[in-house]
C-alpha cells in the first residue's frame, strides 16, 4: 500500500485496515488526512482483491474531530476544505467495498461522522461519542443529515444541540453501533463483524446501500422505480446466475431422490 503521512494502512487477505495516525494531535482530521483518506478510498475502489475497509484510530482515541489549526486565523476563511472533507465522507459512504468503523476511546465531531459513513460500526465499551461543534459555535458537517436517519430527529437534536457525550452502551441501544465489547475482545469482535458481512457481492452491496440511503427521502413510487432497476441488475449478475443454477441442480437431485423413494415403496 501507498505510504500515507496520516494513516497506517495494513492489508490482511481481502481486508484493508486504515488506522488514523496522528497520535500527537489525537488523530485530529487535517487536510492531509482528508487527502490521504480520499486517495486510499480511490485505491480500494479499484482494488480487485479487497472486500472490506476497516477504519480505526489509536487505542485511546479514534479521532478528536476536525483540526482547527487548518483554519486561517486572521483572514476570511473559505469553505473549500470542508467541501473536500464532505466529498470524501460521501466517497467512503458509497465505496464499492464493505466499510467498518472500529472505535476505541474518544470519537468526536468529524471522527463521529466517519463512523456514521460506514456500513458496520463497532466500539469498545470505553468509547465515547460526541458532536461538540454546536456547543463550540460551528456545525458538525453533514452529520446533521446522517445522524437523524440513524436515530430519529428527537435524539439527533439532543446529541447535536447539547453536545452531550454518548457512551458506547447507549449508542448500541440506539442502533448507532452494531456491537460493543470489552477491550480484551476488541480484535475478536472486529473479526466477527467483518466475517458477518462476507461474502462480498459488489452489485448487491452497492444497490442495497443506495436504496437504504434513499429510504427516508423519496416517495414510494419513485423508490419502487429505483428498486426495480436495481433488482434487475442484481438478478442478472453472476452470483444470482450461480444461485439459480444451484436451485436447478437441487431440483434435479430432489426429483431423483423422490423417484428412488417411489421405487423403494
Amino acid at each position, binding site marked *: 500500500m501507498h505510504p500515507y503521512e496520516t494513516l497506517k494502512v495494513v492489508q490482511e487477505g481481502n481486508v484493508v485496515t486504515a488506522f488514523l495516525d496522528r497520535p500527537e494531535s489525537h488523530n485530529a482530521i*487535517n*487536510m492531509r488526512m482528508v487527502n490521504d483518506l*480520499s*486517495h486510499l478510498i*480511490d485505491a480500494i475502489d479499484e482494488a480487485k482483491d479487497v472486500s472490506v475497509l476497516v477504519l480505526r484510530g489509536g487505542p485511546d482515541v479514534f479521532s478528536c474531530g476536525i483540526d482547527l489549526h*487548518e*483554519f486561517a486565523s486572521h483572514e476570511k*476563511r*473559505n469553505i*473549500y*476544505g*470542508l*467541501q*473536500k*472533507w464532505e*466529498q470524501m465522507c460521501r*466517497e467512503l459512504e*458509497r465505496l464499492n467495498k464493505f466499510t467498518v468503523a472500529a472505535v476505541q476511546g474518544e470519537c468526536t465531531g468529524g471522527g463521529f461522522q466517519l463512523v456514521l459513513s460506514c456500513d458496520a460500526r463497532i466500539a469498545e465499551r470505553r468509547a465515547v461519542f460526541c458532536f461538540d461543534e454546536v456547543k463550540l459555535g460551528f456545525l458538525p458537517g453533514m452529520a446533521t443529515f446522517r445522524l437523524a436517519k440513524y436515530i430519529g430527529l428527537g435524539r439527533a437534536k439532543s446529541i447535536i444541540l447539547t453536545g452531550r457525550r454518548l457512551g458506547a452502551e447507549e449508542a448500541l441501544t440506539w442502533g448507532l453501533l452494531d456491537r460493543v465489547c470489552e477491550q480484551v475482545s476488541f480484535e475478536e469482535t472486529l473479526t466477527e463483524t467483518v466475517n458477518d458481512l462476507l461474502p462480498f457481492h459488489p452489485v448487491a452491496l*452497492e*444497490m442495497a446501500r*443506495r436504496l437504504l440511503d434513499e429510504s427516508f427521502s423519496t416517495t414510494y*413510487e419513485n423508490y419502487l*422505480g*429505483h428498486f*426495480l*432497476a*436495481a433488482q*434487475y*441488475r442484481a438478478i*442478472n449478475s453472476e452470483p444470482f446466475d450461480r444461485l439459480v443454477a444451484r436451485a436447478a441442480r437441487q431440483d434435479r437431485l430432489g426429483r431423483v431422490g423422490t423417484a428412488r423413494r417411489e421405487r423403494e415403496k
Partner: protein
Amino acid sequence: MIDVQRIESPTRAAFHRPSSGPRILSVGTATPPRKYTQDEVLDVFGETDPKIRGVFRSSHIGSRYLYLPDPIDGRMVEETNQELLAKHRDGALEIGSQAIEEALRPLGLAPYDVDFLCCITTTGFLCPSLSAHLIKKMIFRENVQRIDILGMGCNAAVNGLQAVTAFARANPGKLALMLCVEICSAAYVYNQSMVTGVVNSLFGDGAAAIVIRQDGADTWQRGPIVADFEPHIVSEALMAMRYDVQGSKLSFFLARDIPYEIGANVEKPVNRLLGRHGLKRKDIDHWLVHSGGAKVIDAIEYNVGLTDHDMRHTLGVLKNFGNLSSGSILFSYKELCREGVVREGDLGVAIAMGPGTSIETALLIW
C-alpha cells in the same frame, strides 16, 4: 482549512485537455404552439381505460407540446397516413426553422453562413429530404454540404454529432449546423392497446439545433469541445424498439424490459469512454442523458451511480416536454447552459439510447 480552490481528483488533474476541437457554439429549441397536460391528452382522445389512464399519470410527465388536430364534436378524428406524413413535414419545417434561427441568432449568423447541414428525424419520411426543404425555406447557400439521418431514433443526436464534428475538425473555421426535429404526434397510432398507450403517453414534439465550429479563437465560454465518442450496440435486443406497421401507419413498439436492458449495459460504453482518458465517473461534472422515460432514467441512475441532481435536466425535460426522441439531450444541454453553473475545465458526458438497441455516449470538455 487550506485553500483548495478547485476540488480536483488526481485522475482529473492528469487528464490531458485538448487545446482545440469542434465546439458547440450555441443551441436553439422550438416546440409546437400547443401544450397538453397528460389529462388533456386523455380527454382529447376520450380514453377511459383505467390501465392506460394509469400509465399516463405515472409517466413523470407534466405536459407536452403536440401537433394534435382539433376535435370535431368533442371527438378526436383519426388522421390518415397521408395526413400524418404531411403533419410531419409541415411541423418539421415550422419548428425546425425556428430552432435553427434561435441557434444562429446569438452568433449573428444566418443560414447563408452555414457550410454543413445535418438534419435528423425518425418520425416521418420525406423525399426530397428535410434538409432540401429547409434550404429552400430558409435560404441556405446552394453549395451547402448536407446529410439527412433517418430512422436512428432517440440516440441519433449523438450519431449526428459524430458526422458534424468530423466535418468541423476537417474544415477548421467552417460552420456546421445540426437539427434534430421529431414530430412524434405524426407517428401516433391510436388503437386502445397498451403498447400504443405507453408510446402515446410518452413522446412529445420538438426541435433542437446546434451550431458547431472548430476555431482556435473560440474559448470555453462559447461552449464545450466534443472530444470523443463511444457507442455500444446490444444486437440481441435488435427488435426491442422498432416501428411496426399497423394498417398503413407506422406504430412505434417499445419492449417492456428495454429500460432495464439499457440499464444493464450502460456502464460498458461509459467505462470505455472514460477509461481511455484515464477518467472516473466522479470526475464528470455534467451528465446529459436522454429523457427516455421514468424507468430508463431510474435504470441509468442506478447503474452509472448518478443522482437525481445529476439527472435534473433529464428529469426536467421529461416533465415539461415528454420524450422528444433525438432532440431530447439538446434540450437538456440548453437547460444546462441556462443554469450558468458550468466552469472552465468542466467535463460532461452525454448518453442517448435508442433502437438498435443502441447506447451512444460522448465526452464534452469546457
